[in-house]
């Protein structure tokens, strides 16, 4: 992964953290599960990147199976937070972010979408 891309990704995630106080963890990863950049956190970043890419691919497989188009975003809701995950438009990159319950799902999704688009714009 080009250093310029890694730098851009890291900067973007830092901005995202500033913009959303409920963001606890976020990562940008390649379609095939490599970690490009991530916020510091307790989790094994490399492992999480692999899992997020599996989730993304399974989401696509489900929408393909049900013939409902492509997967736009995936949400995993739990007692202590929401994982929101979506593709960076036009790129083989995925943004996956964990928000605590201070944010509503809608707000978390809006934040994630906005920054995924920003990432796409940075890479143009």
């Amino acid at each position: 992964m080009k250093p310029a891309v890694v730098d851009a990704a890291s900067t973007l995630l830092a901005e995202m953290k500033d913009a959303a106080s409920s963001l606890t963890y976020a990562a940008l990863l390649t379609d095939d599960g490599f970690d490009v950049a991530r916020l510091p956190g307790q989790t094994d970043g490399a492992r999480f990147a692999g899992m997020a890419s599996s989730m993304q691919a399974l989401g696509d497989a489900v929408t393909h199976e049900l013939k409902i188009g492509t997967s736009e975003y995936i949400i995993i809701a739990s007692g202590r937070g929401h994982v929101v995950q979506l593709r960076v438009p036009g790129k083989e990159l995925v943004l996956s972010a964990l928000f605590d319950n201070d944010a509503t799902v809608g707000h978390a999704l809006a934040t994630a979408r906005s920054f995924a688009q920003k990432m796409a714009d940075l890479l143009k």
Partner: protein
Amino acid sequence: MAEHVILFAGPMGAGKTTAIESLSEIEVVRTEANNSERHIVDKATTTVALDYGEILIGAQEKVRLYGIPGQQRFDFMWTILKKRAKGMVLLVNSDAPDPIGEMTFFLEEFRELYDRGGVVVGITRSDVMPGPALAEFSDALERTNPGLLIPVFTVDPREADQMQNVLLALIANIEMRAAFGMLATTGAS
């Protein structure tokens, strides 16, 4: 519905996805992503979650075929998928840097599938580049796991009849192991 789950394991590039496509009667569910490491393994895509195919034996019985992602960073999927399976086809490509090492590694990782049912090893791409002789694979199995009688076949995963032979040999072996009390846990269906 009676279900029999067979796992396809082995390193990236061995031909697991291809093998399942040769056997499956349904369109195979694939989870491929573009390979960002072309310089390490020259493959355009790689499986990131699993492959899934089926053979329908009757109205009430099917064989489910699951392929693991070959790369180790997806080993959480290995844990999930190995729980369901009664047997395993271990595919290794002859032109891998260390095919015997790969075979030994995956047999170790998925040893419980041998204990519970059975394993057949398929060496792929031996026409592309000869690699170690078949006897070397058998010898290595005997050294690392003495007493395990694991079939080792050369196989082209694109050929349906060859893959069917591998699958039938696996199932014959699983059933005879059960019949003669060789399995670690009895009553595995």
